């Protein structure tokens, strides 16, 4: 892992404000994420982390402030453009293509980064991605399921496929939206271990939004805590664990 302090920020959030009606969901949040970091974004229900997450994804235009990825403003950008900019993401709900095979799911996740529209029509059926996809499938230990329809997999396996798709295009930044939700404990340990390994092998930056404290604490290198739309704490997992403001926010909120 490279030294986070040395490189340019991959993701930069500057004074982001967002209100719905009279409610200020996000109040002037700023932070940077550097290459290779695994940043956790946590907070009690209604703390504004989902709103902020959507601002980062370019889905919600902030009222003020801006979000940039690799120096480019993301507000109003379409999801496919974000993806081509090198941003992968996973979804809170199951988000695979159920009637396509696991291999097809993974190849799809990479094919739009290969060649042009025309070359994708006339070129090879797999856009030359089969081997790469198989490597990724093997990395998540799904090889035995390669030719199964994704919809026939278990919940946890589908979560792995979802994550593998997010990684397929070799993104610099991956946004994980509640990856631990609904996954059983054994699978979760495997999932966490694989994510951490991927981060180490490829130096990919992660931003994780998650409720499961243990998952966040053990996966992330840095954690930002939101409450009532503002950052109330920031630091390593150990620092956050002992932060009185955070404890109050969770117990009081």
């Amino acid at each position: 892992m490279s030294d986070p302090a040395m490189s340019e920020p991959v993701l930069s959030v500057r004074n982001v404000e967002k209100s719905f009606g009279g409610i200020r969901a996000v109040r002037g949040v700023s932070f940077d994420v550097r290459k290779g970091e695994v940043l956790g974004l946590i907070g009690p229900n209604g703390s504004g982390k989902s709103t902020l997450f959507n601002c980062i994804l370019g889905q919600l235009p902030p009222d003020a402030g801006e979000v940039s990825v690799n120096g480019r403003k993301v507000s109003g950008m379409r999801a496919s453009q974000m993806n081509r900019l090198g941003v992968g993401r996973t979804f809170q709900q199951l988000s695979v293509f159920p009637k396509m095979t696991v291999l097809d799911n993974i190849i799809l996740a990479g094919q739009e980064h290969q060649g042009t529209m025309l070359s994708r029509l006339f070129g090879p059926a797999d856009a030359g991605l089969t081997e790469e996809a198989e490597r990724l499938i093997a990395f998540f230990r799904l090889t035995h399921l390669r030719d199964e329809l994704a919809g026939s997999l278990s919940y946890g396996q589908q979560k792995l496929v979802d994550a593998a798709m997010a990684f397929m295009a070799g993104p610099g930044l991956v946004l994980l939206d509640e990856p631990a939700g609904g996954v059983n404990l054994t699978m979760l340990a495997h999932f966490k271990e694989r994510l951490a390994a991927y981060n180490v092998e490829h130096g990919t930056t992660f931003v994780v939004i998650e409720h499961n404290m243990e998952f966040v604490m053990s996966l992330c290198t840095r954690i930002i805590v939101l409450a009532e739309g503002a950052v109330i704490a920031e630091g390593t997992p150990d620092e956050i664990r002992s932060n009185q403001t955070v404890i109050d926010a969770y117990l009081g909120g």
Partner: protein
Amino acid sequence: MRGLSLHRSWRLLLIVALLAAAILLPLGQKNYFIYVLTSWLIFTIAAMGLNLTLGYAGQISLAQASFMALGAYTTALMTLAGWHWLVSLPVGLTLCFVVGLVLGYPALRVKGHFLAFVTLAFNTLVFLVLRNEEWLTGGTYGLSGMPRPEFGSFSTDKQLPFYYFTLGVTVLAALGLWAIVRSPWGRAFKALRENPIRAESLGVDTRRFTLLAFAIGSAYGGLAGALVTPLVQFIEPGSFGLAHSLRILLMVVVGGAGYFFGPFIGAAVVILLPEVLRFTEGYYLIIYSALVIVMLVFVPSGLIGIFGKLRARFWPRRQVRADMAEGARLP
């Protein structure tokens, strides 16, 4: 691996056998039979296009007959003006492609039944224009006397040569569609159908693929129309009304939406069923629609789906390979 390639060669053999059957079948048959076979092929092409739009890309369209109309009228007007069919074809296809793109725009905003009604409205609008703009389309009397194409010494004037001509076009159209659905485009279309939001987040430009699904599907409709003109040698607006769009939709659904060979089977059933049920006299439409409802209740994936179910029951899809199942299997 060995088993799979064995499957492949079997399939190839079957395709060749079917093609041979398609070539030999009409020999020595009467004109009506050949005519039915020809219209089966033509409707198969139209249904293939809708299968791309609906079956692969998940966008419902009730306007396929109106694209047949665009293709048919373009071909009719141009061949009547003395152009060769081969010249009129690209004009008709381009027109359908472009109009299909335009019709795709509403699909960017609305889905499902809303889209169904927009396309249905479009179909009816096309019908009204064809009927009312007499100076161009001949109005309710339609256009007649269109010549059948000649290719050197190969004249399609007789029923049998025209059938072979249509068969050739169908095979080319099927190959074209096969190339599309097995390419990364095909994967993107399926992704659009299965989960458009996820597809978009993986870099698939879903807007572009939605429009393309309509445009390509419409061009296939236009191709079918371009064949109707020389087959019937008479076209009028009523032949491209809403009922025909519904008929093509039923072909896709009955055959099996999203299956490559679905349209072939669906078109065969929709065209041949009246023949098979003829002994029931006036009741065949009743029986037919009841059968469709029953099928949708029990096998919504169409007739191919029935076969799939039977196959899964008697011949399991794939044995679990012990070597792979070990080790990586997660609890």
